């Protein structure tokens, strides 16, 4: 029912717009008699309304537009000249249509408007009856010699009113009378040219850059008033950015709505039984992104049914229900959209993939022997790889996943696959929310700055004085990360800059590209910021290493690295290393339990769980200000409070409820406030980026999100200088209560 309402509503909105156009077209027709294009446009409009109203069961509307269409067809085909009488009768028709639409909009039904006079009037013109002769039935065809100023007034529907057509007054103004509190369809939504939205988005992009510039200037000048004003500007810019982005957002259902039919057809033609589950239909994406994923999505769905889900008898034999399940799932995660296409079919056999890759000559047997299953799946994305045993018309023409990958790459997305033999396969696309503005990490390399799209970034690690974790395979450095060897690629080498003298102090940005991982060595990390990709000249684009350029806060131009391209370039540089780079070795590396809390909209802070005593929730108003410092009463004591938002330089924001992390030592305690407790995770904290501010040790990546590592000790000492004087012996229980 709702869906029906939606359709009717759209119909009304669309028709109203078309009618406005019609009015002016008809009037223009009087001066431009016989203009083919105008007549065609008018004809199309009426034809559309007729078709849709027939479909929606609005008989009266269909009746009126039907005769109107006949008349217009004659005009269009040149069988009849446009004269004033024709114009009048057509305008009358438009008014009648408008009136019926008004009734539909208000009540959902046509109501009992009498359309016979209008129909008769048009028919009279059609039949070539003389104007004066058309007295009674065609009364409304002879209204005002001048075009009606108030179109709605001329057609008061009831035959009685039609008797005195020149009077504009008798108009009962049905729509106005029903001045309902709800806004009419036309008022609550407007159509906007996508061009306008694109231009708006570009301007917002510029604003974001200007804000970045302001922020960096404010940070330098350290003037509280300026900082305050800048924070406000930043907030507004962010809201505006989100607002404009929203206008461009469309639910993924716009693409998904065609899937059920497609699945039905494909499974029927292949003799499969498939149930389709779609979760997260309302997940919204930028319309440009949506357009770009249409084909990859279609391909993955076809593939899942063709190669994933087995024939019913095979499934029954394997002890599975005959009906396979194809699940599409979409959700937002960390500024990205994740789309999963999962089947419960036969899964992908890594050995079969490896064998096929060797057979196709894409990899040598030695190459594939050492690959971990996850890396084997990446072979699927190689051009010229198709695993279909036999070529079907549905999928498997040798163009396969590489096309999907290319398309997803093109919009800065990432695709990967997980599969278990006999259980099923899940393809996962990670797509940026919008193409216009992207979060990025700025890094330095040989005194130059480059931007790395956040979507490619997994985590940041610093190489310490002893170069812990750095090993060499032949000449090439690798990094032992949680038991696996990560190939290292020096950005200096890739960009042909002065070679690095020592690895000490360098930062490894662990990148995720082409399904594989590698560590990109940079001199250090500058910042994370939102950047706007600016178009670059073909001469620079053609180099194939840069995705674009952007402007930083200081106004300088910075190149955005195309990480998959960098990976490929690096691979050429490092052929020597071979494929044993990612050999699995024993798990090493100390990990620590970290408490993750969220601050503000999108920041995360990690702190060692070992130092946390308790997690609490309090309403915002427990906070009090005593001589400039935040405090709260906690367990009968005045406890100093540290707002993590301020540590992150975000300024205090209002929150309904606070997540409070209490550190207690003896009788002293310090409370840290954040928005939410996110999780407790095991992670290796030596794998962190450089120091990034007071009270912070750097950043680590937790579940794909950059997370600031809090220097808890310094923070606590800063809040309570005597905290650590308390007796060690009185250390209170560790983090078990929450």
């Amino acid at each position, binding site marked *: 029912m709702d869906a029906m309402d939606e359709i009717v509503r759209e119909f009304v909105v669309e028709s109203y717009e078309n009618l406005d156009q019609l009015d002016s077209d008809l009037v223009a027709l009087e001066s431009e008699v016989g203009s083919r294009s105008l007549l065609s446009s008018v004809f199309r409009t009426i034809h559309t309304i007729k078709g849709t109203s027939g479909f929606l069961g609005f008989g009266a509307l269909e009746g009126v537009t039907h005769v109107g269409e006949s008349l217009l067809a004659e005009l269009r085909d040149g069988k009849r000249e446009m004269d004033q009488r024709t114009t009048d009768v057509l305008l009358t028709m438009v008014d009648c249509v408008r009136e019926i639409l008004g009734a539909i909009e208000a009540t959902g039904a046509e109501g009992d408007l009498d359309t016979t006079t209008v129909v008769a009037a048009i028919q009279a013109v059609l039949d070539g009856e003389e104007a004066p002769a058309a007295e009674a039935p065609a009364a409304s065809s002879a209204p005002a010699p001048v075009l009606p100023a108030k179109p709605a007034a001329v057609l008061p529907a009831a035959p009685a009113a039609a008797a005195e057509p020149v009077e504009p007054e008798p108009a009962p103004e049905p729509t106005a009378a029903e001045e309902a509190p709800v806004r009419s369809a036309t008022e609550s939504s407007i159509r906007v040219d996508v061009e306008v939205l694109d231009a708006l988005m570009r301007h917002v992009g510029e604003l974001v850059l200007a804000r970045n510039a302001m922020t960096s200037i404010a940070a330098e000048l350290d003037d509280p008033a300026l900082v305050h004003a800048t924070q406000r500007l930043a907030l507004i810019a962010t809201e505006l950015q989100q607002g404009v982005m929203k206008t461009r957002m469309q639910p993924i259902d716009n693409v998904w709505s065609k899937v059920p039919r497609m699945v039905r057809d494909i499974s029927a033609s292949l003799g499969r039984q498939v149930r389709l589950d779609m979760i997260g239909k309302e997940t919204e994406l930028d319309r440009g992104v949506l357009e770009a994923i249409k084909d990859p999505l279609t391909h993955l769905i076809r593939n899942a049914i063709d190669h994933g889900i087995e024939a019913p008898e095979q499934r029954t034999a394997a002890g599975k229900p005959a009906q396979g399940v194809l699940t599409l799932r979409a959700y937002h995660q960390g500024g990205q959209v994740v789309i999963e296409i999962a089947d419960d079919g036969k899964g992908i056999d890594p050995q079969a993939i490896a064998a096929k890759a060797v057979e196709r000559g894409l990899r040598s047997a030695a190459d594939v022997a050492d690959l971990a299953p996850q890396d084997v799946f990446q072979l699927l994305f190689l051009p010229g790889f198709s695993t279909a045993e036999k070529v079907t018309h549905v999928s498997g023409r040798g163009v396969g996943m590489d096309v999907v990958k290319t398309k997803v790459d093109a919009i800065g997305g990432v695709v990967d696959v997980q599969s278990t033999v006999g259980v099923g396969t899940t393809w996962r696309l990670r797509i940026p929310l919008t193409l216009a503005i992207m979060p990025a990490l700025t890094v330095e390399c040989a005194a130059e700055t480059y931007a790395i799209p956040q979507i490619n970034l997994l985590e940041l690690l610093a190489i310490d004085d002893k170069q812990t974790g750095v090993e060499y395979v032949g000449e090439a450095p690798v990094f032992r990360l949680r038991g696996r060897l990560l190939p290292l690629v020096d950005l200096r080498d890739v960009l042909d800059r002065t070679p690095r003298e020592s690895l000490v102090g360098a930062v490894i940005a662990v990148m995720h590209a082409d399904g594989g991982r590698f560590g990109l060595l940079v001199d250090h990390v500058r910042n994370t910021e939102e950047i706007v990709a600016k178009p670059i000249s073909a*001469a620079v684009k*053609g180099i194939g290493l840069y995705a674009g*350029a952007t*402007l930083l806060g200081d106004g300088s131009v910075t190149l955005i690295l195309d990480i998959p391209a960098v990976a490929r370039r690096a691979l050429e540089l490092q052929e020597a290393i071979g494929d044993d780079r990612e050999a699995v070795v024993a798990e090493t590396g100390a990990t620590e339990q970290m408490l993750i809390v969220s601050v503000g909209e999108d920041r995360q802070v990690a702190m060692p769980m070992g130092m946390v005593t308790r997690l609490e929730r309090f309403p915002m108003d427990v906070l009090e200000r005593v001589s400039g410092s935040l405090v709260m009463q906690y367990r009968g004591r005045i406890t100093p409070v540290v707002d993590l938002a301020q540590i992150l330089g975000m300024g205090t924001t209002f929150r309904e409820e606070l997540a409070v992390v209490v550190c207690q030592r003896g009788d002293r305690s310090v409370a840290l406030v954040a928005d939410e407790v996110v999780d407790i995770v095991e992670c290796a904290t030596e794998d962190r980026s450089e120091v990034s501010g007071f009270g912070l040790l750097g950043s680590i990546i937790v579940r794909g999100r950059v997370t600031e590592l809090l220097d808890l000790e310094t923070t606590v000492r800063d809040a309570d200088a005597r905290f650590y004087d308390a007796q060690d012996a009185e250390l209170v229980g560790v983090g078990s209560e929450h």
Partner: protein
Amino acid sequence: MRHQLATFKLDDCLYGIDVSRVQEALRMQAHTPVPHAPKGVAGLVNLRGQVVLLVDLRVRLGREAFGEDDEPMMMVVKVDGEPVSLLVDQVGDVLEIDASRYGSPPPTLEPALRDFVTGVYSLDDDLLLALDVDLAAQV
């Protein structure tokens, strides 16, 4: 008929570009180098929020590239509707020259220039080489 030409100097030679192709002339600004860029690309520069390619015209014309200590000027020209910034020694005046003074390039013109110079204007005391902007700016 008179031709309006924006002029500039490069290695003591005087060049001219149809004035309608020139967007502006500026002093050299901070620019970002582009590793692996084709020869002649000096970098990228921020021109009022637009990222503009910087082309070292000396390299294009077969001369030695501008060095660190040089203080070239930027002549921003429109190529296919997009601005490109050409690095030149010195931006000169806009000259209005009678079309009758235009002739084909002399056979003595050095080969490196031949591709880029479409013709020559003979001035009273000098020669003005007419530059093919599209070719010169296309790296």
